[in-house]
């Protein structure tokens, strides 16, 4: 073959490489990149349905409309009646900034579009829907408003729920943002070091501190033959590392009951080591640690360290320090478990999805997720938690005429300022509301700052919620 033809073939090969390169890139694009690109909010295809379908309203448990859509000046507009109050629960549906919260997760329900089967697609083409479905929440608007007021100016989260049914009455995370001012505030919101976009109630991972002692207490009860009496000297040394009590107070002779009431650190560190790593971890996992809590909003998993722990780390885990991390949602479930005879029910935020003609399309029912402890031990722990509020660290949560059960926590963390915790429920004999309060980097004890907030909200809730 002559030189010319060889060169012609060289160029042909080069062109072939270009063409196959195009095919390769296109396949790569489709497999690895397409999903992310499609989700860009500038993709008008995402909004095509929005222009012809009246997006459904969102209501609280009493039928108060919180968010609705209306046609004004020929265009469908979304109206958020409460700019900040539901910024983490309902979220937003915004042309430029996309969707979040229930607006994102229940998007198809709100637009009444079903993308599941080919038949549904054909129905959508032949008879397109023009009105979306409404959503009924389990939230009590008044309680939600009160919870936000109680947290005003602080960082943290409050979750209140029915321990028996799982219905969430209030869920507040602070700082929050105004969904009606996204365009003006987006720069500040998205760059704020306090991350107002984060829903702390479900996605904030906090060191639980002493509220975890409820779980350690359950582990002690679950382990036969553990000596429950202990003499507290104000500090103890485990494996060369010293654990001390709040202000080094020596509590003297204690049983489990007194230890929880006084939130004795030396007691629970020592008992955690006695109970052993396996037992404590399994008990924590019964309380939904290291597992996914099914919920209508995205939830971060609480973590309890796995693998061979150093003895000191095991001891620290016993008082909710070390590598133990949890969400406020998980802690309200922990309180609920004690209130509900040891059973953890699935938390519910969306009660019903209702079509415009009033037909219930989908509803969330109460489901048991886990049996954390048996009912006998649950009622034993309940008695201890009543004691915490009556005579112990949680006395600021006590209410006249209503028996409150609870546990405080003051969690040390890398910021240097402790988180203040309170978890509890009331009335103790027939629990109607369970609550978890965390004040992030509050620098104060749970009993001093978190317990009064819980108290206020429980009073409001018991008086106003239609159970």
């Amino acid at each position: 073959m002559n030189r010319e033809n060889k060169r012609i073939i060289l160029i042909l090969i080069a062109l072939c490489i270009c063409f196959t390169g195009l095919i390769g890139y296109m396949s790569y694009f489709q497999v690895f990149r397409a999903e992310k690109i499609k989700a860009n909010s500038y993709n008008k295809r995402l909004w095509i349905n929005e222009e012809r379908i009246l997006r459904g309203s969102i209501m609280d448990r009493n039928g108060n409309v919180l968010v609705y859509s209306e046609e004004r000046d020929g265009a469908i507009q979304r109206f958020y009646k409460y700019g900040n109050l539901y910024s983490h629960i309902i979220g937003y549906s915004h042309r430029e900034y996309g969707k979040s919260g229930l607006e994102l997760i229940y998007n198809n329900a709100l637009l009444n579009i079903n993308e599941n089967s080919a038949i549904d697609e054909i129905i959508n083409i032949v008879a397109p829907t023009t009105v979306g479905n409404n959503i009924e929440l389990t939230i009590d608007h008044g309680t939600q408003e009160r919870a936000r007021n109680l947290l005003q100016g602080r960082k943290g989260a409050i979750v209140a729920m029915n321990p028996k049914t799982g219905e969430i009455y209030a869920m507040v995370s602070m700082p929050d943002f105004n969904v009606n001012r996204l365009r003006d505030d987006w720069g500040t919101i998205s760059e704020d070091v306090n991350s107002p976009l984060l829903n702390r109630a479900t996605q904030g991972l906090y060191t639980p501190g002493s509220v975890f002692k409820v779980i350690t207490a359950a582990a002690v009860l679950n382990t036969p033959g553990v000596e429950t009496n202990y003499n507290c000297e104000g500090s103890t040394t485990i494996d060369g590392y010293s654990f001390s009590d709040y202000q080094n107070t020596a509590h003297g002779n204690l049983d489990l009951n007194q230890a929880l009431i006084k939130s004795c650190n030396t007691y629970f560190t020592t008992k955690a080591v006695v109970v052993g790593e396996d037992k404590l971890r399994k008990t924590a996992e019964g309380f939904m640690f290291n597992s996914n809590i099914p919920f209508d909003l995205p939830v971060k998993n609480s973590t309890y360290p796995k693998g061979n722990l150093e003895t000191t780390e095991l001891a620290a885990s016993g008082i909710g320090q070390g590598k133990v991390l949890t969400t406020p949602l998980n802690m309200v479930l922990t309180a609920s478990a004690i209130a509900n005879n040891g059973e953890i029910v699935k938390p519910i935020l969306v009660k019903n999805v209702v079509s415009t003609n009033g037909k219930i399309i989908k509803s969330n029912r109460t489901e048991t997720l886990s049996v954390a402890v048996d009912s006998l031990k649950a009622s034993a722990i309940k008695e201890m938690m009543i004691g915490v509020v009556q005579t112990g660290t949680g006395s600021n949560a006590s209410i006249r005429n209503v028996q409150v059960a609870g546990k405080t926590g003051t969690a040390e963390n890398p910021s240097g300022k402790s988180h203040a915790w309170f978890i509890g429920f009331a009335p103790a004999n027939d629990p109607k509301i369970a609550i978890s309060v965390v004040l992030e980097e509050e620098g104060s004890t749970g009993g001093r700052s978190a317990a009064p907030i819980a108290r206020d909200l429980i009073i409001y809730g018991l008086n106003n919620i239609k159970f």
Partner: protein
Amino acid sequence: MFNKKVSINSPRNLLFLFEILSLFLLLVSQWNNIEKTIYYIWIGLILIIYISNYLLNKISSGDNYIFLIVTMLMSIGIIMIYRIDPNLGMKQLLWLSGGIAVFYLTYFAIKLIRGWDRWITLYIGASYFLFIMTFLLGTRKYGAINWINIGGISFQPAEITKILVIFIIASYYNKPDVFKKYRYSDYILMGIIYSFIALLFLQRDLGTALIFYGIFLFVQFIYEEKRKLILYNIGLSSIGAILGYVLFDHVKIRIQTWIDPWSFIDNKGYQITQSLFAIAEGGFFGTGLGLGHPEFIPLAYTDFIFSAICEEMGIFTGIGIIMLFLILVYRGFKIALNQNNKFYKILAIGVSLLFGIQSIIILGGVLKLLPLTGITLPFVSYGGSSILSSFIALGILQVSSEDINYEGEEVVE
């Protein structure tokens, strides 16, 4: 083993089937606004395509597949254009019929008229004339001044210049010795081509400039005896590219939006991001004809037709189109390898390069693999001048695929 008749008939029949099926789909999706006349025109086109393929088999002793490939490409294109805008689809039907006529016209003209290799001065003169016309009469369309409007019909002179450039290069390298007698003839050729490229830069028609450059560089690579000229060419063009980037804002914008279109999604990056949305939305099998949203893609019927096709027919169809171009280019080069007449050999290379480079530039562009330059996808995009010039080029390739028994007469001093 394979009977030639069978092997050419079966793809022709498959193409026929494809057209009938997709016509049916179009009828269903456009049911509400169908005019009666459209049936006749569609059926007319399908018959024209079928008959031309059949006739070509009888007339031409050369490659019978290239026309078949092209009719497949244009069938996909016209279906998409008609789906986007029935009025444009109707016009495109006429252009395609005209294109096929021009293909036969070119075929016979190139075959019957002798001496195509001797008119280099005419080609150069005609090219400059077209450029001058463009600047005098040109109107700006989509940011480029490359359209002229005569008697209500607007066309792109650069589409014709493409063909002329191939003829200029082929005439020169056919008999380089004749020209080498004049001093610096090789530099003069390079100067002429560069002047075209510079003029295209001024018209902001970067895509076409790139095509000219590509054709020239590759043919030079194959035939130029003085190898250092190729290096000069590459060096000069690199300097030119950098200068173009520094001097012209419109070049800068292309590069910026290629590197990161997402930052300019509202304005400069709008076109390319809309194209990516469409391709991503289509997935492997597409949304189905009539179920996507090509109306969101700017210029979906011309430059971005590939994105619209990918959205509704899936990237499998997109890959199909790329493979059709690959086969077309492959057959073009095969024709060149088998052609003994040097002039026609270079013509075949030039035309194959034209199809290859043009399709790679625009396909890479809409995929954001290359900077976006506004050119058409040959045979698929809407556009009279593009369709006509592509069919002229195809006609030339068809002639080149046959045995050429005569030698061009020696140029006598």
